[in-house]
């Protein structure tokens, strides 16, 4: 063994963490990883549970649901059902990564490679993160949000704020602008403008709901414009701007939840890529450390053991199976791209004429920057990988009696398996597509939402009813929801329920 070894034991110390970080940073730089500065924080397992419970936000406003999360994590951790994640990394500038004090030196190095260089460079490079989140201001914004909400609690009572947050959380997935780039967040401006906005908003609302009878002249009645003029998919945004009864502070709270949802939106769309990228790099970086004689054989054995368990994919019929492991899929796809670049087979040349034989670093970098899960899989999932993972697709159609295996990992199936897997990561397919269709501005002020069915999938009745109650709370007047398939209304929900109303009258 050479004298290059950074450490030999499994105990870590701050000096060693620093030494590993420096060594890994040097290799990462050689490979051209572009990262935010790192802020590595060593925490205890209890603090890790806290971080867990707040879904990784370093600062969060207070809400019972985080308490529920915390109790859940605590309970399963104490019973030993679950180990804590090795790491949590926050998309911020500097990029905050947590190391748990219980980890061995090898784990700390692995986490540094994985989070501080893998995830970090992904956050900085991927187009979704670049255009949807502003890493430099998120922490400030969260501080602003926390303070604002606790001020509201003081002013209006915990219950009022809590129930409002409940409603907003129920619609969190419908608080995202899917196509527009949001205005960057800044806590400072946010505070300054917040008052202004309050007044301005309230004025606008009042305008919209002004009901001076004279304005309704007979000839105008016909062409009263529909409101909203186009269906709105950002439900929370619509409520923030147009809900008739919300107080200014309530609008601000809706906005906060919306902004937080927006911040997490890219993460939900790039899970496979993000984890795959981080796994690919920790694998490469740690191996490189070994090649340079900086770590011991024992270190490597321990590393391989954790690495393989992270990327283990149980087969569909295993009792541990719970869907496709994004770490596995991502890691293999990233490695596979490198393979295609370096050692393309005839098959690869046919499927990937553009990248076969190209520079792997440039190709991977390109892939990391310009795709999200859905398009990444559609573009880069190779026949070889489908064979390796033995992917097959099934069709469960309620019009058929049986479940059918539609295609498997063979010549005639590659294309379909790839398309179907890609579609599985399309958020639009996973979440019901619900939009605000119409508001009866001149009438009873009721709001009508439409659910556009995808593949004839209905809405789950019980949860839909519950969510409608939340919408009703935010809107303040009757809420109708129609589930529409081929211009035909298949399901209708109302809040308050129509039957009750009729019986009252």
């Amino acid at each position, binding site marked *: 063994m050479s004298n290059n070894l950074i450490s030999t034991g499994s105990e870590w110390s*701050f000096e060693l963490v*620093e030494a590993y970080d420096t060594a890994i940073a040097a290799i990462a730089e050689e490979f051209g990883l572009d990262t935010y*500065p*790192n802020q*590595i*924080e*060593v925490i*205890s397992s209890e*603090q890790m*549970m806290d971080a867990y*419970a*707040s879904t990784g936000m370093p600062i969060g406003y*207070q809400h*019972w*649901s*985080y*308490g*529920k999360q*915390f*109790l859940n994590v*605590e*309970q399963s951790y104490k019973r030993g059902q679950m180990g804590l994640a090795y790491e949590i990394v926050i998309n911020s500038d*500097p990029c905050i990564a947590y190391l748990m*004090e219980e980890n061995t030196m090898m784990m700390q190095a692995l986490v540094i490679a994985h989070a501080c260089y893998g995830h970090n460079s992904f956050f900085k490079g991927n187009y979704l993160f670049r255009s949807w989140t502003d890493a430099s201001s998120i922490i400030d914004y969260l501080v602003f949000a926390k303070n604002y909400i606790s001020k509201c609690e003081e002013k209006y009572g915990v219950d009022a704020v*809590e129930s409002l947050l*409940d409603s907003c959380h*129920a619609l969190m997935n419908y608080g995202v602008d899917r196509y527009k780039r949001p205005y960057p967040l800044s806590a400072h401006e946010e505070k300054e403008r917040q008052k202004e906005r309050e007044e301005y908003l309230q004025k606008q609302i009042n305008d919209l709901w002004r009901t001076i009878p004279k304005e309704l002249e007979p000839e105008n009645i016909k062409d009263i414009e529909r409101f909203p003029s186009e269906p709105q998919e950002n439900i929370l945004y619509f409520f923030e701007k147009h809900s008739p009864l919300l107080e200014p502070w309530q609008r601000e709270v809706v906005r906060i939840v919306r902004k937080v949802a927006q911040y997490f939106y890219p993460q939900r769309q790039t899970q496979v890529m993000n984890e795959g990228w981080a796994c690919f790099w920790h694998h490469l970086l740690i191996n490189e450390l070994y090649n340079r004689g900086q770590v011991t054989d024992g270190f490597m054995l321990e590393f391989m053991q954790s690495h393989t368990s992270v990327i283990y*994919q149980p*087969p*569909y*019929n295993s009792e541990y199976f719970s869907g*496709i492991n994004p770490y596995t899929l991502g890691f293999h796809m990233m490695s596979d791209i490198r393979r295609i670049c370096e050692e393309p087979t005839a098959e690869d040349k046919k499927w990937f004429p553009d990248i076969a034989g190209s520079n792997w670093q440039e190709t991977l970098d390109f892939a990391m920057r310009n795709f999200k899960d859905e398009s990444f899989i559609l573009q880069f999932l190779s026949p070889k990988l489908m064979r390796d*993972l033995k992917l*097959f697709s*099934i*069709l469960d159609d*309620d019009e058929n*009696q*049986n*479940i*059918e*295996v539609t*295609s498997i*990992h*063979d010549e005639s*199936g590659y294309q379909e398996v790839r398309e*179907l897997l890609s*579609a*599985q990561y399309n958020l639009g397919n*996973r*979440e*019901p597509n619900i939009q605000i269709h119409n508001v009866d501005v001149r009438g009873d002020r009721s709001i009508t939402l439409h659910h556009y069915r995808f*593949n004839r999938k*209905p*809405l*789950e009745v*019980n*949860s839909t009813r*519950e*969510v409608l109650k939340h919408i009703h709370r935010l809107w303040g007047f009757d809420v109708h929801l129609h589930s529409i398939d081929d211009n035909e209304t298949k399901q209708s929900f109302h809040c308050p329920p129509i039957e009750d109303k009729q019986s009252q009258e």
Partner: protein
Amino acid sequence: MSYIIDRRLNTKKKSTVNRQRFLRRYRQHIKKAVADAIDKRSITDVKQGEKISIPGKDIEEYTFTHGSGGRNTRVLPGNDQFIAGDQMRRPKGGGGSGGSGNGASDSGEGMDEFVFQISQEEFLDFMFEDLELPNLVKRQLAGNEDFEMKRAGISNEGSPGKVNIIRSLRSANSRRIALTGRKRKQLKALESEIAALLLQNYSEEDPIVSELMEQVQVLRHKIKRVPWLDDFDLKYNLHVKHPVPRSRAVMFCLMDVSGSMDRQTKDTAKRFFLLLYLFLQRNYEKTEVVFIRHHTSAKEVDEEEFFYSRETGGTIVSSALHLMDEVITERYPPSQWNIYGAQASDGDNWEDDSSICYDLLTNKLMSKLQYFSYIEITSREGQALWHTYQKILEEYPSNFTMKNLQHARDIYPVFRQLFHKKVA
């Protein structure tokens, strides 16, 4: 570039508030779980926390999800047997390969219990919520054995350990200013005079100037001699003793250990005493317990003996009441103690002893007691003692209670009845 920060010393309990919010929101559920738990627990357990489980559907946070049905496709790994076109039965029970992934199981079949742990403190909070000790009149009785030091401003005397440096230096400073003010004025005047003379081309050796210089020297010297810190500059922080009112209680546990009391009855009694003890402990800073057991004669014993040693014999309840009165007179003057009595019995008593009990209680004890509770653990009709106590109940409706208990599981409800917060 990386910064490495040790955050381990930061606060750990970031989630505490959120956790409390959760407990607050599901108060009703938890209370029910606590009530259930008390029945199931063994007595020695009451000092622990409790595992609480709440139906999962009650705490679900709903979002829009797809229901089962429609056309679902799904890609799965690990194909070991299928080729394209294979058909298979749809698994029963919805869920499973429902296609929409996690969504379906969140709202569909995922109705597991939500289980979590609460601490002993919280457990007791929920256990004794809405309960209240009756007749808290004497609660704030001051025992005068305890004092608390409180700040009481600044004084001129004190021990060196309590010197207030800022105040001392401030007063030294003002003293110096006051004592030297005139001299410094003179000094200034002299200096400007010298300066003026020098400007008029007087040399420094000129006698007028040198005399002035001498005066300046003298003044400077005088100013310098004013001490920088003097004895009477010293200021001390003053602390005074405040008596702390203490509330304390003594609880008398009276139990019949005669032959008729079997093991199970005693066990039931013990649980009741334990609940009462925990409850008193939460209401008073200091709670003492006196155990008195009796058959035909009464004896003060320790806890171990009270619950576990066996004796047989007849039953004379008044002997215990006698002893209780003696102990009160001897050790717990009612002016200083909140006194609670709890008696458990199976209701047996010598016929003519009941009237003695009545006399004892009404003439001697009741005036000294905050509260006396009697539980009769029997499935039979009320005995002589029961009837006698009923008379007392009529006379002291607010200080006396009695309940009949049949099973261990009745204890908590009965206990709650006894101490239920009365809405004024």
